[in-house]
């Protein structure tokens, strides 16, 4: 259901933005395209190596811990919680953008705070996961987990895991910083003065991108 525009509209003759969208927003979209190709390259190389290798650890054996539950066998539970946290923070981000459209500065503050808390919670969970795996002996160059068929696993497993989730986590971290900056700008009334909340929308696009990448990372490492 694309935007309705009058027929015969000359978009490219100058004087107006061709896609009827602000320059910064369009550039953010194209930046996200380039970043998704980078993540795509990482995930494709992971997939090629993984399916080209005879044996690979079973993710349900490796990722079965849950914080504060000690020795336990709860595969997929913790990562589902992380996915839920990130999706929720995406929802609060859209609600912040919605509040911006409605010119409601206080609500924007409220929803931005929730989004930042969601991002921090996700980072905390990821940090816990990394620490837990590290105490079990996993790290770049070290893989203590045997393959599913009990042959010796290569370090590709941990190398890819830490690199890709680390790269994603770095994006979450930078997204949280951007959101904090947006929050401060909003609280100081910058957007109310400008009359539009377009920067929040652009920050929102970046945040949703981070969520989108997580959906793919989650599928590739924990499900496939």
């Amino acid at each position, binding site marked *: 259901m694309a935007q309705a525009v009058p027929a015969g509209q000359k978009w490219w003759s100058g004087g107006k933005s061709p896609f009827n969208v602000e320059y910064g927003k369009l550039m953010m979209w194209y930046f996200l395209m380039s970043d998704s190709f980078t993540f795509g390259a990482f995930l494709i190389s992971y997939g090629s190596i993984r*399916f080209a290798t005879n044996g690979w650890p079973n993710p349900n054996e490796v990722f079965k811990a849950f914080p504060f539950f000690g020795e336990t066998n709860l595969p*997929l539970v913790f990562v589902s919680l992380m996915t839920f946290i990130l999706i929720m923070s995406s929802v609060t981000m859209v609600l912040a953008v919605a509040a911006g459209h409605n010119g409601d500065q206080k609500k924007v503050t409220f929803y931005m705070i929730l989004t930042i808390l969601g991002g921090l919670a996700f980072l905390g969970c990821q940090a816990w996961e990394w620490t837990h795996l590290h105490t079990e002996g996993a790290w770049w160059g070290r893989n203590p987990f045997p393959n599913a068929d009990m042959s010796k696993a290569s370090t590709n497993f941990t190398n890819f895991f830490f690199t890709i989730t680390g790269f994603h986590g770095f994006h979450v971290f930078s997204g949280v910083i951007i959101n904090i900056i947006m929050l401060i700008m909003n609280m100081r009334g910058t957007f109310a003065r400008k009359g539009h909340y377009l920067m929040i929308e652009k920050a929102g696009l970046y945040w949703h991108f981070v969520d989108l990448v997580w959906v793919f990372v989650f*599928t590739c490492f924990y499900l496939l």
Partner: protein
Amino acid sequence: MSNQATTGQTAGHDNAHGSFDTRPIWRTFWILLVITLVEITLATIHMKTGFPSKYVLNGIYLILTCAKAFYIIAEFMHLRHEIKNMIMTIAVPACLFIWFIVAFLWDGSSYNALRNRYDRHYADQNKVKVEQPAEKPGKPE
């Protein structure tokens, strides 16, 4: 589309103050949640009973993941409501991704089969088993 969803969409397009409709957002949230729960349920069923087969399961996961990606891009990032040509500048490269996903599974798998067939040493390497670890995962080397 239900009547309610359609009215939601048109009301949401009014850019005047005070009328950004959040109903499609919550609907999208529930769709994403349900899809994720389905994926996890299938994974758990597969763990316990081995059904469906891993190939079928992976295919289902990829389709569901693409569905989630579609909803996040279209609704949360609002792309569905932009001008059609702009949607194309994003959607056409995104279709390349579909091809990439197919390619990585196919290529990797083919390389594996070919290597096992032509490299005896590689195929035999996999037969050397490590000692069974105890209940706890193995210690670092």
